[in-house]
C-alpha cells in the first residue's frame, strides 16, 4: 500500500541521511578533530537515575541515559523525527499495516558476550506491552502478537494499523533485554527481578554499568561487543569509561566544569549560557528539544472550593494569552535562549503545525476581558514549585504583564509533592508546567494536553469533542496526509480554545570542555555518548 510505503520511505530516507548527518550535528562551527579512542569522560548530572529498567522506570533521569545501556529494534534519528536501523536492519509493513516484519541484525551480542536471540526480542516486546507492567504499555498497546518467524525474523501482528508503531519500536520501553539473565535474577515477581537485574543491567548498548553509588556516581565501561562502528571503521564506543557524577547544585556543577574536574554537564541554567559561551575553555551546546513551557489553567466552570471560575470563559483565556509578551518573557527568563510557542507542541514534533499564537496585544486583551464581563479584571492564582527559580521568574513576569489588564495573579509556591496532590485533585486555578516528548510522534503530547479521557487535558478539565474524535481516529490513520490534516485541526482548535497559557520552547543546554566532543542529545532528550571522546 502506498501509504505504508510512504512511512517506510520516510524512515529509510532518514536512515540514509542520519549516518552522514550525525557527525555534523556537533553544533559548534569549528572543524572536528578525528575521534580519539580510549580514555574516560566525566559528565556532571543534576540528578541521579532511579531505576534502570526500560519498562518499569518512570522518569527522564532514567530514560535519557538508558540508551547508553540498551538498544531498541529501531532508533530515533538524531533530529528526533524519524527512525533508523537499530537491532533490526530492515522492516516491512504488510497487510495494510496490520503486520510488521522485522529482520534482526546479525551477530549482535549482549555486553556479557552472549548472542541476542529472536526469543529475547519477542520476550522484551511482550514485557513492554504488558499493561500490568509500568506506565508505558500504552505506547505499544496496538500490538496483538509478537512471533519468532525464524532466528533472524520477528513478525508483529497489529490489532489495528498503528501509524506510530515504528516510532514506538525506537522508544526506550521497547529496548531488548536478555531474557535468560533477567529471569535468572533474584525474586519471584517481574518487579523484584527487574530490581535485581537493574542493579547490573546487561543490554546490547555501547556501555555496561560497572559501578553505581546512588546519588554519587555511575560508572560505565565500554561494551566490547557493541555492534555500531565509528568513523574509523572500528567498533564504537570510543571511550573506555564514562562516569556520571551527580552534582545537584547548579553553581557547583558549573564551577567543577570551569575548574576542569568534569568534562561536561547537563542542564546549564539558561541565564548562564552567555557567560559560558564567553569562556575560552568551554563549548556551549544548545540542542533542539521538544520542551515546551506553559501555564495550565483550570477550565472548569467552578473551582474546587465551589467559587465561580473566570478561566472557564474562553474569552478570558484568550485575553490572558494576549496580555503576555512572550518575547519579553523569553528575554527575562531565558536571556534570549528560548523561542515562543507556536502550537502546543514543539517545532521538533512530527506533524507540528505552525500558528501565530497570541502576539501581545494589551488593548485586545482588555476588550476581550470586558466582553467576558471582567472590565476591571479579577484575581486568580498559580501554583509553582517553591525554590525553583525558573518557575518563579516565569510566574513573576506573568504577574506583572497581567497587572496591565487588571488581572491580579497570586503566587502559591508549594513543594512538589503538595503541588502534585492538588493538581491531581483538580484543586487549582493555574500551575506552571513543562513537557518533553518521549516518542517521536504528536500522539503522546496530544493525549496529555488535548484529549480529555486520558488525564483531563493536563487536569485542566478542557474537553473538546472534535479534538477527542480527531485524536481517536488519528490512532489508526496510516495515511500520512490525512493524519497530518487531523493534527493540524487539533492544533488549530487548541490554539483558539487556549486551555493553557502558551509561553516558550527551550533548548537542552549542555556545556563541555573544548577537549570533549561527540556528545549528542536528541530532541526527545536521549543522551548519546556512543561517539563521544576526549582529546588531550
Amino acid at each position, binding site marked *: 500500500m502506498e501509504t505504508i510505503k510512504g512511512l517506510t520511505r520516510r524512515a529509510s530516507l532518514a536512515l540514509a541521511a542520519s549516518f552522514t548527518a550525525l557527525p555534523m550535528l556537533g553544533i559548534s562551527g569549528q572543524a572536528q578533530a578525528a575521534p580519539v579512542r580510549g580514555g574516560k569522560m566525566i559528565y556532571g548530572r543534576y540528578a541521579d537515575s532511579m531505576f534502570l529498567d526500560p519498562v518499569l522506570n518512570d522518569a527522564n533521569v532514567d530514560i535519557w541515559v538508558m540508551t547508553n545501556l540498551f538498544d531498541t529494534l529501531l532508533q530515533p534519528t538524531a533530529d528526533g523525527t524519524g527512525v533508523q536501523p537499530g537491532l533490526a536492519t530492515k522492516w516491512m509493513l504488510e497487510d495494510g499495516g496490520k503486520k510488521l516484519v522485522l529482520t534482526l541484525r546479525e551477530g549482535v551480542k549482549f555486553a556479557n558476550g552472549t548472542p541476542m536471540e529472536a526469543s529475547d526480542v519477542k520476550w522484551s516486546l511482550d514485557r513492554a506491552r504488558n499493561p500490568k507492567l509500568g506506565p508505558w504499555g500504552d505506547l505499544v498497546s496496538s500490538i496483538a502478537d509478537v512471533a519468532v518467524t525464524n532466528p533472524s525474523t520477528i513478525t508483529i501482528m497489529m490489532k489495528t494499523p498503528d501509524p506510530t508503531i515504528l516510532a514506538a519500536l525506537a522508544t526506550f520501553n521497547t529496548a531488548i533485554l536478555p531474557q535468560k539473565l533477567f529471569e535468572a535474577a533474584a525474586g519471584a515477581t517481574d518487579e523484584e527481578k527487574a530490581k535485581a537485574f537493574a542493579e547490573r543491567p546487561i543490554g546490547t548498548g555501547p556501555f555496561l554499568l560497572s559501578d553505581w553509588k546512588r546519588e554519587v556516581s555511575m560508572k560505565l565501561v565500554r561494551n566490547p561487543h557493541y555492534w555500531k562502528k565509528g568513523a574509523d571503521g572500528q567498533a564504537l564506543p570510543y571511550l573506555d569509561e564514562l562516569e556520571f557524577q551527580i*552534582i545537584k547544585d547548579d553553581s557547583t556543577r558549573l564551577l567543577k566544569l570551569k575548574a576542569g574536574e568534569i568534562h561536561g554537564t547537563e542542564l546549564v541554567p539558561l541565564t548562564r549560557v552567555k557567560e559560558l559561551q564567553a569562556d575560552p575553555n568551554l563549548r556551549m551546546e544548545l540542542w533542539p528539544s521538544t520542551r515546551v513551557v506553559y501555564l495550565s489553567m483550570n477550565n472548569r466552570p467552578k473551582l474546587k472550593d465551589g467559587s465561580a471560575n473566570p478561566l472557564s470563559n474562553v474569552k478570558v483565556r484568550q485575553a490572558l494569552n494576549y496580555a503576555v509578551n512572550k518575547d519579553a518573557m523569553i528575554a527575562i527568563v531565558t536571556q534570549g535562549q528560548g523561542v515562543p510557542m507556536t502550537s502546543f507542541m514543539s517545532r521538533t514534533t512530527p506533524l507540528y503545525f505552525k500558528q501565530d499564537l497570541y502576539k501581545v496585544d494589551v488593548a485586545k486583551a482588555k476588550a476581550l476581558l470586558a466582553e467576558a464581563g471582567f472590565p476591571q479584571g479579577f484575581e486568580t492564582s498559580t501554583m509553582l514549585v517553591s525554590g525553583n527559580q525558573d518557575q518563579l521568574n516565569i510566574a513573576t513576569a506573568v504577574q506583572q504583564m497581567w497587572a496591565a489588564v487588571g488581572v491580579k495573579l497570586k503566587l502559591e509556591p508549594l513543594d*512538589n*509533592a503538595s503541588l502534585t496532590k492538588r493538581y491531581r485533585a483538580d484543586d487549582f486555578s493555574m500551575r506552571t508546567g513543562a513537557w518533553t516528548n518521549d516518542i517521536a510522534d504528536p500522539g503522546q503530547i496530544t493525549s496529555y494536553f488535548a484529549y480529555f479521557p486520558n488525564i483531563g487535558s493536563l487536569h485542566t478539565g478542557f474537553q473538546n469533542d472534535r479534538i477527542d474524535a480527531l485524536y481517536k481516529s488519528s490512532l489508526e490513520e496510516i495515511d500520512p496526509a490525512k493524519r497530518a490534516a487531523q493534527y493540524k485541526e487539533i492544533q488549530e482548535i487548541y490554539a483558539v480554545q487556549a486551555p493553557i497559557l502558551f509561553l516558550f520552547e527551550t533548548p537542552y543546554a549542555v556545556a563541555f570542555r573544548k577537549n570533549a566532543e561527540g556528545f549528542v542529545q536528541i530532541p526527545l532528550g536521549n543522551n548519546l555518548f556512543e561517539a563521544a571522546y576526549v582529546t588531550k
Partner: protein
Amino acid sequence: MNRGTWLLGRLAQIVPSFLAIGGLVFVLARLLPGDPVSAVLGDRASDATIARLTAQLGLDRSILSQLFGFLSGILQGQLGDSIAYRVPVTRLIGERLPATLMLTGFALILAIVIAVPLAFVAALRENRWPDLVIRGVFQVGLSTPVFYVGLLLLTGLAARARLFPVGGYGEGWLEHLWYLFLPALTLAFSFAAILMRSLRSAILLVLTAEFVDFARSKGLRPGLILGRHVLRNALIATVTLVGLHVGSLLGGAVITESVFAVPGVGRLMVDSIFARDYPVIQALTLILAVLVSLAFLVTDIVQMWLDPRVGR
C-alpha cells in the same frame, strides 16, 4: 549511685526514646500533604497506575497497621526499601553516612582547633586589640549564611586558586580529607564563633575564681595554671555546648553537602522529604537520633571526667 549504674540508666533511656521518635516521625511524614506514589510517578501517571503502586507498597493499609509493621521492623533491624530508589534504605544510608560523619567530625575538630587557642588569646587580652579583632571576625562568621561562606570559599580557594577540588569526596582517606577540608571549614566557621565566645567568657569567669588566686599565690607557673586549672574548668560549659551542637552541625551539613557536592545523608534527607520517601525519612531520622544521643552520652562521659561531681 555509682558511675556504672548511672551509665546504664542513661543507656536505658535511649531505647524507648527511639521508639517514640520512630513513631513520631512516622506520623509526621504522613501528615505532609502529597504522597510518595504520586511524587515518584509524577503528573502524568494515570489513576490506575497510582492505585497499583500504592497497593504494591502497602500504602493502602490502615495507618495503624503500617505503624505496627514499621515499629516491629525496627525491632528486627528491618527498615524497608526506598520508594524512589527501590533499594534497601540501610544500603542507601550506609553508602552516605561515612561522608557525613567524616564531614561533621572534621568540622568539629576544626572548630575546636580554631576556637580554643583564640579564646585564650581573646580572654587574656580582654578588650585589647587582639580580643576585638578575634571577636569582630567571628561576629561576621556567625552572621553570614553557611551557603554563602561555602560559595565564597569554593570560588576563591577552589575554582580560582585551585588549592582544593571544587566538590566531591574523592577516594581513599587522604583524598577524603583533602576534598572535605573546605566544606568542613565552612561548617566549622559559625560553630567556632559560638565556641570561642562561650569559652572566652568561661575563661574570664574562671580567671577571677578564688582557686586561681590560690594557685597563683602557691607560685605555680602561669602556663600550668592555665592548662590544668583554668582550661579544665572553663571546658565544662564548653563541652556541653559542643555536645548540644552536634545536632545542628548535622543539620548544617545538609547545606554544606549540597554546595560542595559531598555525597552525604544531608542531601538525601532533603530529597527524601520532597519525594515523600517515607522509609528513608524514617530510617534517617532514627539514625540521626542515635548519633545525637551518642553525642550526648559522650558529652556526659567527658563531663564526668572533667567534673568529678557529675554522676555521683
